[in-house]
């Protein structure tokens, strides 16, 4: 079994036409080829390496992660003397991936990284998540290295980054008992110790995934007397420096393999990352966007696992003399699951490409490269699209993962409710996806600006300009109608002239935009490959229904009715 090579959709997205631009830019005219014997010579060589490395991860996910998942779910991690001990399987998963040399996949080669584009990086996370969505957190936290790479000094980068490839794990320590969605309330205190030349951290962090990591990024209050986000800075802490104790780990509904820790910092030494006071405003937002992309990958990987399990069962289980998949009630469920899965995956990689290009341009600017006016315009466009698509992806893919896992149990009937089958674990694992790294409600807050100011509409227009095959034209027409409904709904809500009402309808507006964007993406996929034709038909029909539902709610809404909801 191989969770990469058994899934044609992954190859399809990996080979998107825009990849040439992503890889050419990322490899900077393949300049590393004379410095590193594993660097690609050209685009084809890079793509071939992506393919081969995805195959390694697909092999490990199918033959190690997936096999360990059930045992890890039962066993979970433990705290022993203030330290976390992973479940046996979790440790094995991590060790095998380390042995395969795939950690540090997106870091530059000079830090022992593989310098892969965001697309294969995200794909690796998707493949890992299909094997064990809980383990995907430990894997995904290498994102912290991306933040260090983007914002820390060269000295810190040299000290920490090469260790990622050796399997050193990371954690991002943001949340506190009184600072969850509202990170401006963070209290953990950082004071500078002149004698040691280090910052000292004191306080408590809570709900910290993989809290006993080797390398920690910690959000702390460095400016005494401040109370908001502007007093927060970002720090890096090495576990070897001591001062952090795991007080307890949470007993959770799902993702049991990934330890969720409560941490006590007692004079824990740390070094500043980037500039003071930009901790929350700049660095955490960047890290958070990366983490949201990661949750998107996790959601799609889990959805793939749940869908496949359900499809297999529906083909094998016989009732009333035939396989249950032959009943309309079941095949419709499966078709909609598949359509949601394909749509979520499509927006996952569309977002990844936008993130990739905007990040590569930003890195070029950081290194003093002077961009051409066209490149500057492109950088702005991709940054805007990445900002808009990331929350839409996070919300849609995580909600879909929950719906798909729910339907997967439904297809299994009573059997699915039992611990003997993996779907109940997937269902529990899925539940956190709409919550952490910003709830769906907060994704709406992040995305609504782009819906109100017309960015979403512009993006949809750009999709509409791509020519499609004749047989897909009817779908294009439906999508154009959905687009018109979006513009109309935005105008209606804006016309209500009241911020509270905009907030009240924000989710509906973001969803209308989301259905239209996802629908367009699946349509374009169907245009490139017949394999997505059914999903395009099913998703657009489903999306249109959802859009109409929201549109008619908004159209019929009387501003004063908001009082009934209080």
């Amino acid at each position, binding site marked *: 079994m191989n969770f990469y090579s058994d899934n044609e959709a992954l190859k399809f997205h990996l080979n998107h036409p825009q990849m040439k631009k992503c890889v050419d830019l990322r490899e900077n005219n393949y300049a590393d080829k004379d410095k590193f014997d594993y660097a690609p010579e050209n685009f084809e060589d890079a793509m071939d390496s992506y393919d081969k490395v995805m195959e390694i991860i697909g*092999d490990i996910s199918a033959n190690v992660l997936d096999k360990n998942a059930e045992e890890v779910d039962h066993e979970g991690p433990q705290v022993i003397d203030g330290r976390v001990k992973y479940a046996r399987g979790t440790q094995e998963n991590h060790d095998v991936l380390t042995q395969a*040399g795939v950690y540090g996949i997106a870091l530059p080669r000079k830090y022992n990284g593989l310098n892969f584009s965001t697309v294969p990086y995200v794909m690796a996370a998707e493949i890992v998540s299909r094997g064990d969505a809980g383990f995907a957190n430990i894997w995904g936290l290498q994102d912290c290295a991306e933040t260090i790479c983007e914002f820390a000094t060269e000295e810190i980068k040299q000290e920490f980054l090469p260790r990622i490839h050796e399997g050193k794990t990371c954690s991002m320590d943001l949340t506190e008992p009184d600072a969850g969605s509202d990170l401006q309330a963070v209290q953990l205190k950082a004071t500078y110790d002149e004698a040691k030349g280090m910052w000292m951290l004191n306080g408590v962090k809570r709900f910290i995934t993989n809290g006993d990591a080797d390398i920690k990024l910690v959000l702390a209050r460095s400016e005494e007397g401040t109370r908001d986000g502007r007093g927060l800075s970002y720090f890096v802490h090495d576990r070897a420096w001591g001062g952090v104790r795991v007080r307890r780990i949470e007993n959770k509904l799902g993702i049991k393999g990934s330890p969720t820790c409560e941490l006590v910092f007692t004079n824990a030494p740390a070094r500043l990352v980037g500039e003071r006071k930009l901790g929350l405003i700049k660095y955490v937002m960047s890290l958070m966007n990366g983490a949201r992309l990661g949750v998107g990958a996790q959601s799609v990987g889990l959805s793939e696992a749940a869908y496949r399990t359900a499809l297999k069962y529906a083909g094998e289980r016989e009732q009333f003399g035939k396989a249950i998949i032959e009943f309309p009630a079941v095949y419709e469920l499966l078709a909609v699951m598949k359509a949601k899965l394909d749509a979520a995956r499509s927006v996952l990689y569309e977002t990844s490409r936008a993130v990739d290009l905007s990040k590569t341009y930003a890195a070029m600017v950081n290194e003093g490269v002077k961009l051409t006016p066209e490149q500057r315009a492109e950088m702005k466009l991709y940054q805007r699209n990445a900002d808009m698509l990331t929350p839409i992806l996070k919300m849609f893919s995580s909600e879909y993962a929950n719906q798909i896992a729910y339907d997967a149990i439904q297809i299994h009937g009573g059997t699915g409710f039992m611990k003997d089958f993996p779907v109940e674990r997937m269902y529990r694992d899925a539940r956190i996806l709409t919550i952490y790294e910003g709830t769906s409600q907060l994704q709406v807050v992040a995305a609504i600006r782009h819906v109100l100011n017309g960015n979403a509409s512009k993006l949809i227009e750009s999709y509409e300009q791509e020519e499609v095959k004749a047989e897909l034209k009817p779908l294009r027409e439906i999508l154009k109608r959905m687009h018109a409904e979006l513009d109309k709904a935005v105008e209606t809500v804006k016309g209500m002239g009241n911020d509270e009402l905009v907030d009240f309808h924000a989710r509906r507006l973001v969803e209308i935009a989301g259905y239209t964007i996802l629908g367009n993406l699946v349509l374009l996929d169907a245009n490139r490959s017949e394999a997505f034709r059914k999903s395009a038909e099913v998703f657009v029909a489903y999306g249109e229904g959802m859009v109409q539902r929201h549109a008619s709610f908004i159209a019929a809404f009387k501003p004063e009715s908001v009082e009934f909801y209080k």
Partner: protein
Amino acid sequence: MSFRIVVLAKQVPDTRNVGKDAMKEDGTINRAALPAIYNPEDLNALEMAIQIKEKVQGAEIFVLTMGPGRAAEIVRESMYRGADAGCVVSDMKFAGADTLATSYTLSMALRKLAPFDVVLCGRQAIDGDTAQVGPQTAEKLHMPQITYAEELVKVDAKNIIIKRRLERGVETVSSPLPCLITVHGSAKECRPRHAVRVMRYKHAAAPNELAQASEMRKAKVQADKALQIGEWTAADLDADPARLGMSGSPTKVKKIDNVVLVHKEAKRIDGSDASVNELVKELISTHIIG
């Protein structure tokens, strides 16, 4: 100090996933229908080689495989996981070799490679299941051998200690080096391919493969000795032609019968008490039970 570990590895048809086209009409294996894979126990041997390499400073792993030209895939696969170099021993003159001729060929190749410190191979290959090639090769080279190895206990420049898996237990033995070790499937599974090694060694090629390779690959291989997979023919081995291939093989396959199990005498009974009684009586009367 150099310390050379040689792994004898074989490319085999994947007999674990046999479909209906696995055998030709004449009863021989239809190689085209079966994917060629790394013999599973040879992968255990490669893992043990890598473990030895990790313990002995300056050690290097050389992979030797005998087979058709495409067996260079085995060398590359080994490189992906930790081998440093390798060679394909390939010649039409080797065709039809039984275990005697194969072990002779391998021993001649090893003589050419000498000096070496440890030779590792899988206990047996899944296409022949003889478990003879390793021991015969050791005999021909007058080397001590440890068969059925399960775990590397200790190794240094002069000695090796190995835990062997036997039918009714384990046995820990020590041997001076050089020695030959055949590794059992219960030994540690081979580690995965290493991403960086894959990206580096995917260009590695044997001379016969370079003919169809891209210009980029040709240039890379030419410029980097580490990417050159060796290719030895019978002429390179200084071997006695009479002991190679078919002529060196006393084992002659006269005829292969295609055994098809059919359940022509199968009897279907329903689950009623009467039928079960009937069946039990019949089994007792024919002395199958009772």
